[in-house]
């Protein structure tokens, strides 16, 4: 036997038991969190698409909703509907209480010091825009710098481009390594006394990379920068604590954490939110209105002009109840075992290229195949009932960085199973059959 064959044999011996072990670990943790019962809470997971059972692996785009979230919204419209913060009547008082209870719930969920640090928005995008317009725009000047990274979603890039263009501040971009990690080797050149804002993602929606937020926030604060964390791809995957990481602003979207669309969370340190101008004006956000002058409400209501998305807030509250019922620590451990298994199994598919690091990783695995374009991959997967995304994932600079027009992306949630990963891998072999 040649040396080469020896190595190959060794590798095979090594790899196979390894993925088996990974699978066993994922199965063990699945039993621990009661995965079967948990899946039963998601009515859509029972459906078939194109004649096959649905395998939903597009969770980084949006997660499915548990029955309790659907019921909460249904109950709100069937039994509880009224406007908040207005009516002197029973229903209005009740729903106002519920609405504010969700604010507290969100505050506890992400570790805010006080409830008034939580502002309800349309989603993570609106949260970033709010900070860009109300905090950055009036404060930045030529000579100031805004630092973002190469792995930002367009939502954490374009608003800062606008601020830079309007204020004369400079937009700088922290590079990433070939492994898909933030390149911190020259951090001191990017993060300087000039940096007023450092906005970056907790977890990349393309690469799945978990960034060292705590360490970076500490360094940013040393040079006096204000830090905005895009938590959209983090909040449903592991415990998040804004006081522990010590960020100044944090945003997330309800629909990526088992809640409804159109609702999001902005956390901001109370002193920062207090000194900011309102983002939008109108009803609800005022204390006193005269033609000569208007006195704005205190935070957080100052940032919630008009009738808010009440059903969204109620649904979000229920989504947090769901997450708490499973336990964020449990979710984190199970998903880590599942994504490790997925990474290992996908790595075995010939001709595949996985973007981003092996660890630390959460949620998404983006990949390309030498035989087929990402769109064709996703379409063959769709034919097998497997929902994935193909394209640039609203992160064109990442695509450019890796010299790719697009990638296919499978992204997991707590309800996905090792069997579903096997189905994905099997379908990728089919892609090879067709296009190889």
């Amino acid at each position: 036997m040649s040396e080469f064959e020896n190595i190959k044999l060794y590798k095979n011996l090594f790899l196979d038991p390894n993925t088996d072990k990974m699978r066993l670990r994922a199965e063990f943790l699945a039993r621990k969190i009661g995965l079967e019962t948990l899946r039963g809470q998601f009515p859509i997971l029972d459906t078939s698409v194109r004649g096959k059972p649905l395998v939903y692996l597009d969770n980084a785009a949006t997660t499915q909703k548990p029955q309790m979230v659907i019921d909460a919204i249904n109950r709100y419209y069937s039994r509880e509907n009224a406007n908040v913060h207005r009516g002197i009547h029973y229903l209005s008082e009740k729903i106002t209480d519920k609405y504010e209870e969700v604010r507290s719930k969100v505050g506890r969920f992400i570790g805010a010091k006080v409830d008034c640090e939580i502002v309800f928005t349309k989603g993570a995008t609106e949260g970033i825009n709010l900070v860009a317009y109300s905090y950055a725009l009036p404060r930045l000047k030529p000579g100031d710098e805004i630092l973002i990274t190469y792995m930002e979603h367009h939502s954490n890039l374009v608003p800062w481009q606008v601020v830079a263009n309007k204020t004369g501040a400079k937009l700088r971009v922290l590079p990433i390594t070939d492994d898909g990690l933030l390149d911190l080797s020259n951090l001191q050149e990017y993060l300087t006394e000039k940096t007023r804002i450092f906005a970056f993602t907790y977890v990349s929606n393309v690469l799945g990379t978990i960034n060292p937020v705590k360490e970076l926030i500490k360094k940013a604060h040393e040079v006096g920068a204000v830090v905005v964390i895009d938590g959209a791809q983090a909040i449903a995957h592991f415990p998040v604590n804004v006081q522990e990481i010590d960020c100044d602003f944090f945003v997330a979207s309800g629909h990526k954490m088992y809640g409804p669309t159109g609702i999001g969370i902005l956390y901001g340190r109370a002193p920062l939110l207090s000194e900011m101008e309102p983002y939008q004006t109108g009803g609800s956000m005022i204390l006193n209105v005269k033609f000569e002058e208007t006195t704005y409400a205190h935070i957080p209501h100052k940032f919630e002009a008009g009738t808010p998305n009440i059903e969204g807030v109620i649904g979000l509250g229920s989504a947090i109840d769901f997450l708490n019922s499973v336990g964020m620590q449990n979710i984190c451990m199970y998903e880590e075992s599942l994504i490790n298994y997925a990474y290992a199994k996908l790595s075995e598919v010939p001709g595949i290229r996985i973007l981003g690091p092996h660890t630390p990783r959460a949620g998404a695995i983006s990949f390309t195949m030498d035989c087929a374009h990402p769109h064709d991959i996703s379409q063959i997967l769709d034919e097998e009932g497997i929902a994935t995304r193909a394209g640039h994932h609203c992160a064109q600079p990442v695509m450019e960085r890796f010299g790719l027009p697009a990638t296919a992306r499978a992204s997991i949630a707590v309800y996905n199973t090792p069997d579903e990963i096997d189905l994905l891998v099997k379908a990728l072999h089919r892609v090879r059959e067709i296009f190889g």
Partner: protein
Amino acid sequence: MSTRALYEKILLDHAKNPRNFKVPEKFDVKLEGFNPLCGDQFTFYIVFEGDVVKSIYFTGNGCAISKASASILTTLLEGKCKDEAMNIIQSFMNLMRTPSNEKVDEEKFGKLAVLAGVREYPIRIKCATLPWHTVEKILQGEVSSQVTTE
């Protein structure tokens, strides 16, 4: 028609072995077509002889459907005068607008009929039409800028 069947036909052959897939040494006009949503990007090069598309080539990257569509386009338009070429392009655009449950008149559409299966996947229609939009612009004399699907 399953995806398998859709890909299987002539389409897959054109995608794997695209015809006229190179930058010619000489050409009269070139134009890039780009789909910003998926990153599909093709450049077409045409050599005219008077009013006739003497030869037509393309290069670029895209999914199987877009590449096959571009390849088929070059085989259909070569040697046609501008009016004939525009008619073929119009036939193709009409085909793409025909509901997918309507049977395709294979005699009328000829080679174009192999692309008819794309209609079952509405989000892929743009993949198929990008090359045609690009060449249409060339024939209309609009070659100053990039053509995009958006």
